């Protein structure tokens, strides 16, 4: 047995143990901490599956951003008696049996792959050079399946609208309540002064390098969002009121540019979301740069939650 397969087995064992503990631990706080660790372990699994782009996304969004969001939710929920509410043993036994059946069914599918594995990799590599991109995943996201990526941005905006619309009437247009986190103490403030310069450069680099190597708008935008939230949580800057025009402008700038270029494709190329010959890469980089800003603002606002205080005049 090679070192690599021993490592793989150890990673899988850790993922399953930490994953099960997010379900089994008694307090919601412990479960959320476990979930953040789980996200980071999962990104190691993605590296082992040769999907570095996915690993970056999982570490940034699946572990980091979701962990932050859930920690905020735990801090806001005031109930302490939740872990006393338990489902009875017959239900648990039945659920366990059902889940074992589901796992067995999936395992059979996993262990019996089709004789000829379908793959689109050769087609992707064949059609990638005209776009000027070097990263096949970026090629799929921004050239071959650009409609998916555009609609995904719309989904994120719709989710943000949904979150905002859950605000009480008096708080509409106000600022999100991020002060549920710990009171800013000197180490946190120091960290919030030290990290953002590095983080902002890193986020922009990730977006820029995404055309050629693993990285991209999603991952870079998430890093920028994390830096912004860190500064807000540390109290160095106030969270913006959701009625601010610049905030809303930034939110829609990326999807609007993407949509405009997509519509222009009808005129200058032959289809919606098609890029004119020779201009593919500059257009994609422009879309990615704008999208990075929009994603950063949207993810940060999603993690911040609905507005809780009315805007101070």
């Amino acid at each position, binding site marked *: 047995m090679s070192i690599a397969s021993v490592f793989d087995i150890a990673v899988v064992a850790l993922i*399953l143990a930490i*994953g099960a503990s997010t379900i089994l631990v008694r307090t919601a706080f412990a479960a959320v901490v476990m979930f953040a660790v789980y996200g980071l372990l999962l990104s190691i699994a993605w590296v082992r599956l*040769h999907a570095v782009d*996915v690993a970056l996304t999982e570490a940034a969004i699946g572990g980091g951003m979701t962990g932050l969001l859930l920690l905020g939710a735990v801090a806001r929920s005031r109930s302490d008696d939740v872990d006393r*509410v338990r489902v009875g043993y017959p239900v648990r036994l039945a659920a366990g049996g059902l889940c074992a059946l589901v796992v067995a069914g*999936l395992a059979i599918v996993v262990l019996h792959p089709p004789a000829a594995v379908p793959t689109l*990799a050769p087609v992707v590599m064949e059609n990638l050079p005209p776009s000027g991109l070097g990263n096949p995943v970026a090629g799929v996201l921004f050239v071959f399946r650009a409609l998916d990526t555009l609609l995904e941005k719309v989904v994120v905006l719709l989710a*943000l609208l949904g979150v905002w619309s859950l605000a009480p009437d008096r708080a509409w247009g106000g600022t999100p309540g991020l002060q549920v986190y710990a009171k800013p103490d000197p180490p946190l403030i120091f960290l919030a002064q030290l990290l953002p310069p590095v983080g902002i450069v890193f986020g922009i680099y990730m977006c820029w390098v995404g055309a050629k190597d693993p990285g991209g708008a999603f991952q870079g935008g998430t890093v920028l969002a994390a830096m912004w939230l860190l500064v807000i949580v540390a109290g160095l800057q106030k969270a913006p009121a959701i009625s601010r025009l610049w905030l809303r402008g930034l939110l829609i700038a990326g999807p609007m540019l993407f949509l405009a270029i997509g519509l222009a494709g009808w005129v200058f190329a032959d289809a919606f979301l098609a890029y004119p010959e020779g201009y593919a890469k500059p257009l994609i980089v422009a879309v990615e740069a704008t999208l990075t800003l929009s994603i950063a603002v949207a993810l940060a606002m999603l*993690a911040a939650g609905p507005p809780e205080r009315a805007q101070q005049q």
Partner: protein
Amino acid sequence: MNAATLFGLCGAALVGIGLYGLITNPEPLRKILAFNLLGSGVFLLFGMIARRAAAAGLGGDPVPQAMVITAIVVAFAATAMAIALVQRLADETGRASISSDSSDAVDGEGKS
């Protein structure tokens, strides 16, 4: 057993673990966590499919990989929406659980 199959089985087990948590835990926040676990199991199955379809000098099929990136972002957006809904529900009703079956619950919920 190669790495792809191993992580595929890991994904299958995670789907089961997530489903169990989704069914048995009456607390909404824990249900959301369990649903995320279930989702990441499905993503790992996609990773297995992508790895097995490695060709043309790539380590995996980039199409399923790109789909998983999109899925992770959408799952985050859906989680944020679900948490906002749960918090509004808690603010309105003061209840921390959505269990309606009080005979199964050890603690009396009907007091509220």
